[in-house]
């Protein structure tokens, strides 16, 4: 299929002088938000014990272990700011992302041993599910750096039990193994109880000589107080027992290497554990990239610095989505699907690091006279209309048929509304798109370039497409909410305003409440909020975006569950005609 893919049609325009001039303020606005995100990320990395203190104990921090383990330049961190239960430490006590080890993509996660020795804390299980899901959807190995002291006892009620509690993560490991996805674990430190299952549940265990894994910890001295409460006498007994307690914690290498053989390998040095993982990763199942590449990888024709000029922070300002996409895909080349239909959305085949991907994005601005064809009002990009929804359904379905992964870009204010839109079947076509996505069974990712709003946020491959969306990225300009804050304030309070007016009562309290609600919508939709509560999986600087897109494409094509021979694809033929 060389004639189709080796050289596709170039697209995107160079920036004009006037654009360069006008964008100066925008660059500053984007960088200010990106700097704020970087500051928050630094705070997470520096939380807990200082690195020197961990190193003085003869241990590496999780960050040092990751640096040693990963192929340089491949790390794409995810969930760095994720902290849905608002832990004081600012994270969920695990560090994760997508990266290469010995040339193979893996989902990688490690306990942060700088905070209470890597204990389970609130929100952590949800973070872990996102990573086991990442491995499952990409069909790539999961690599754990286990170092887990068990449950943070004073908050256990928030995460220990329940359907999606910390113990559920072990079922997820078993589920991955069910799908033939290996889970490798380097094990360090003391790992009692839940920590023990963190150690035993993976497929192959690489142990440091000082580690242990056990059903329970040695620190549990005598269970419940015999009196049913604690008093001074009981406290004295505990002090005495604790002083005498000098037994080595259960489940050491002596037991689980020499006796049970649970540990497949044991290493003297911390680095050697990581060397063991690296060595094993060489043998993990993967295709040579040439098996799937449709062309040699090449950089876009335009610099990604242009993205800082092209993506406006002003949410009302329109821009060219095609120009943005041309800064992200190989050679700034594409094969656009149905360019003369559904002008509010771009759909097309592009190359990412030489791999074929389907790209979808909302176009912005006035859509031209007579569109949408079913209405007497003008169509504006960012909204979805009948033709756009039909085109999206067709494109997604064909990508599924041809086993082409999809990269979605959202900047959407929603789907057209009103009786005219209902008559045009937009509600049904939106749900049809959900059905189409579900039918594809191909991995997808999403970039929320600017607005992710209303139903359009979920029907356009949002994180709610939970079985398909591998991860979602935010930008400095991202804002996600069901509707704009001012619209929400009107929807909530307009009838109340009428009542107060008719009752001849003062309007000030209602107006104040409206402004408060609008402000809350604003504050609770910004990039850092979205990252903290998992509305996005990471907020990424614009000049780092392509790195994530390449990682996604590379990981998808490493060991896919199914294959469509290039010469049997229909989508490129459908585009060519």
């Amino acid at each position, binding site marked *: 299929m060389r004639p189709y893919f080796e050289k596709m049609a170039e697209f995107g325009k160079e920036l*004009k002088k*006037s654009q360069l001039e*006008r964008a100066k303020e925008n660059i500053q606005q984007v960088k200010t938000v990106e700097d704020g995100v970087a500051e928050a990320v630094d705070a997470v990395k520096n939380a807990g014990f200082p690195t020197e203190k961990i190193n003085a104990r003869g241990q590496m921090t999780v960050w040092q272990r990751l640096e040693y383990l990963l192929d340089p330049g491949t790390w794409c961190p995810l969930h760095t700011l994720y902290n849905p239960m608002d832990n004081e430490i600012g994270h969920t006590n695990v560090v994760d992302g997508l990266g290469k080890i010995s040339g193979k993509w893996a989902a990688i996660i490690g306990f942060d041993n700088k905070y209470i020795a890597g204990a389970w804390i609130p929100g952590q299980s949800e973070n872990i599910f996102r990573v086991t899901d990442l491995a499952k959807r990409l069909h790539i190995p999961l690599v754990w750096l286990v170092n887990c002291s068990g449950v943070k006892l004073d908050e256990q009620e928030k995460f220990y039990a329940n359907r999606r509690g910390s113990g559920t993560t072990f079922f997820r490991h078993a589920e991955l193994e069910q799908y033939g996805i290996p889970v490798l674990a380097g094990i360090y430190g003391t790992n009692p109880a839940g920590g023990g299952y963190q150690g035993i549940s993976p497929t192959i265990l690489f142990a440091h000589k000082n580690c242990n894994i056990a059903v329970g910890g040695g620190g549990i001295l005598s269970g419940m107080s015999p009196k049913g409460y604690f008093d001074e006498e009981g406290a004295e007994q505990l002090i005495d027992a604790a002083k005498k307690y000098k037994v080595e914690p259960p489940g050491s290498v002596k037991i689980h290497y020499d006796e049970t053989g649970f540990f497949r390998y044991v290493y003297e040095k911390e680095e050697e554990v990581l060397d063991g993982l690296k060595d094993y990763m060489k043998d993990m199942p993967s295709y040579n990239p040439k098996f799937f590449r449709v062309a040699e990888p090449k950089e876009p024709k335009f610099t990604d610095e242009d993205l800082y000029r092209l993506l406006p922070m*002003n949410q*009302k*300002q*329109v821009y060219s989505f095609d120009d943005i996409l041309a800064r992200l895909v190989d050679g700034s080349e594409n094969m656009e699907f149905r360019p003369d239909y559904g002008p509010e959305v771009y759909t097309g085949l592009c190359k990412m690091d030489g791999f074929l991907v389907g790209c979808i994005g909302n176009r*912005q*601005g*006035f859509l*031209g*006279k007579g569109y949408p064809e079913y209405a007497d009002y*003008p169509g*504006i990009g*960012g909204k979805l209309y009948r033709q756009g929804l039909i085109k999206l359904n067709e494109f997604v379905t064909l990508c599924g048929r041809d086993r082409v992964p999809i990269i979605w870009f959202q900047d959407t*204010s929603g789907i057209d509304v009103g009786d005219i839109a209902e008559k045009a079947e937009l509600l049904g076509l939106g749900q049809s798109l959900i059905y189409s996505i579900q039918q594809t069974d191909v991995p997808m990712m999403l970039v929320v370039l600017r607005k992710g709003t209303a139903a359009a946020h979920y029907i356009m491959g949002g994180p709610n497409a939970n079985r398909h969306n591998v991860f979602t990225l935010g930008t400095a300009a991202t804002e996600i909410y069901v509707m704009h804050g001012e619209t929400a304030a009107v929807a909530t309070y307009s009838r109340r305003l009428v009542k107060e007016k008719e009752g001849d009562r003062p309007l000030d309290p209602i107006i104040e409440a409206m402004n408060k609600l609008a402000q809350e919508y604003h504050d609770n939709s910004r990039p850092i909020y979205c990252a903290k509560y998992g509305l996005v999986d990471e907020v990424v600087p614009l000049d780092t975006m392509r790195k994530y897109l390449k990682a996604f494409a590379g990981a998808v094509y490493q060991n896919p569950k199914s294959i469509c021979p290039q010469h049997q694809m229909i989508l490129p033929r459908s585009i060519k005609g």
Partner: protein
Amino acid sequence: MAQEILAPLAGKIFKLQVAVGDQVEEDDEVIIIEAMKMETPVFAPADGTVKEIKVKEGDAVEEDDVLAVIE
């Protein structure tokens, strides 16, 4: 040859990006119309000089109203 720049849709003139006498290139932003909560740019249809601007910021315009003339 004079060319009229027409409003592509009804809205309010949000911003004039050029003044009479300015040189413009094809596809330069000339005027921004605010409509349906978005700022829609109107572009120069060809290279030329702005001969006349028929609207001011804040004006309401209808579809196909003449906004400016370039020569």
